């Protein structure tokens, strides 16, 4: 019954193959910038996938999801700073700390709905952000350099960039699979039902709060792991990691790629981050024949003027984001 050769599936498989081949390409061409860019894309796609669990499937518009990137990252940074370099210790602590914060934030914010929920998650994120700014011992505003990546003695060498990249990719694919299992399980149907009609869910006997809270904690924990990866990637952590604009970026990735779809957040993350790099170059290229070079460069700095309307068009006209667009194309 299920059609496999759909445009959407071809794009997704193509995307995964490209992602898998990035280190090969880089090792031949020697373009390390691509490696850096794609490692970041894969990690943020993982964070966006975790947000999709609660935003797309659960209808919980958390406007503070980047805070778990920060908490996961700070767990790595602080432990490394204090001499605990073992990843076997660092990573579970990063995940646990994020889950714990999500439990507190969720327990308070999930009692509200709609705009109030958005504002409370935002307020908590700001609170933690300024807490980070106040961490004098760990660099405060300027952040903290991480001199050694997490040590997995005898198992993995994260200082090898290709090994690290493949680990991130593996964890991203694992996250997508996990979220897919979750949303189709009994648990997943409860949080989806609650997004669709919470009143009816209660009337048929579901204590929905505890399920929504569990979803919120799982999403926070996964994002905390993404934060641990990001800190290892940049070898640096600062409050900027959890700035509210980063939370906004994650929402854009999910909405642009397609809410409540398995690969939507990945598609959204790739699109947003690649366009961020490409748009200035494209604008420069288009402007050179008409303007003198300094002016063309200046204009290219206004690339969000192009990205903004593109995002609006997708949101307004493609129900289900780019994923929906690709699936819709099949029906023609």
């Amino acid at each position, binding site marked *: 019954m299920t059609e496999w050769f759909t445009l959407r599936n071809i794009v997704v498989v193509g995307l995964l193959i490209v992602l898998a081949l990035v280190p090969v390409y880089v090792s031949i061409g020697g373009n390390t910038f691509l490696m850096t860019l794609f490692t970041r894309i894969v990690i943020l796609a993982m964070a966006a996938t975790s947000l999709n669990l609660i935003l797309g499937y659960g209808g919980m518009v958390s406007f503070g999801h980047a805070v778990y990137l920060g908490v996961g990252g700070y767990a790595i940074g602080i432990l490394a700073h204090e001499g605990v370099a073992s990843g076997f210790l660092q990573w579970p602590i990063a995940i646990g700390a994020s889950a714990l914060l999500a439990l507190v934030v969720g327990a308070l914010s999930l009692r509200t709905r709609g705009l109030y929920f958005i504002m409370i998650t935002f307020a908590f994120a700001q609170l933690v952000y300024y807490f980070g700014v106040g961490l004098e011992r760990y660099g405060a505003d300027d952040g903290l350099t991480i001199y050694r990546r997490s040590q997995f003695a005898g198992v993995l060498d994260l200082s090898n960039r290709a090994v690290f990249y493949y680990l991130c990719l593996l964890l991203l694919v694992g996250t997508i699979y996990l979220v897919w*299992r*979750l949303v*189709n*399980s*009994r*648990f*997943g*149907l*409860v949080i*989806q*039902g609650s997004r*669709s*009609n919470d*009143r*009816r*869910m*209660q*009337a*048929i*006997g*579901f*204590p*929905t709060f505890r*399920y929504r809270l*569990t979803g919120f904690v799982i999403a926070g924990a996964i994002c905390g792991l993404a934060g641990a990866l990001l800190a290892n990637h940049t070898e640096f952590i600062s409050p900027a990691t959890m700035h509210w604009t980063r939370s906004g970026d994650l929402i854009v990735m999910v909405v642009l790629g397609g809410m409540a779809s398995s690969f939507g957040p990945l598609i959204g993350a790739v699109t947003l981050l690649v366009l961020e790099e490409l748009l200035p170059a494209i604008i420069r290229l288009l402007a050179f024949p008409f303007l003198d070079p300094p002016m063309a460069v200046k204009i290219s700095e206004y690339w969000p003027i192009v990205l903004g309307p593109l995002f609006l068009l997708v949101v307004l006209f493609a129900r289900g984001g780019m994923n929906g667009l690709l699936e819709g194309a099949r029906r023609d």
Partner: protein
Amino acid sequence: MTDALLAIEGLTKRFGGVVASDEITLAIPTGELHAVIGPNGAGKTTLIGELAGEIAPDQGRVWFAGRDITALPVHRRSAIGLARSFQVTSLFPDFTALDNVALAVQAHSGHSFRFWRNARRDAALREPARAVLAQVGLADRADVPVSRLSHGEHRALEIAMALATRPRMLLLDEPMAGMGPDESARMVNMLRGFKRQLTILLIEHDMEAVFALADRITVLVYGRVIASDIPAAIRANEEVRKAYLGAPDELVGQE
């Protein structure tokens, strides 16, 4: 109050200056189909809300199966066998009809902290759900998304959702709302089939349906019970005639 499945005692609810429930006292024995009628704004839906647990009464008590449930949350009431349908269809539009009913079955098959197995392939949920769909005549519409079902099918699915929780008692809030005569007749037949097996509290504007189905009828006016008796006695009651039945406009009134 011991032999009544549902007993209401002195239930009162005020919204500002409006008294929506005014010292309502009522006992519904097991197996009875009890209709509540009254003009628009009589407080019928407020009463359902108080019984289902969505609205907290200011005074009074509600007993179900001998247990004081006045302060019990909505989902706990469903768990002990009190199910409701909604006046305005309240379903999960992105799910299929079968998904909807299976979710109601799931709510009553243990906790849902089950994270791995595909719930849509779980026969323990799907089979009972199919049986309930067949009961309300939607067997061949199981895989149609709710957003593509007709109004009459939505109303039938409303009932199916309540039935799937295996209740002892149904609270039906205007099940015939917005239905044509044919659909109404079908709904009356279906409800007649549930009589005796289930205790039913029926709120309905369709007088033909009410008098065809009810064992007893309670008349609510401005939140107050003005009569509660068998259909023949309600028809003959002077006060009811004056307050309600006598005014022909009210008989066809819809909210």
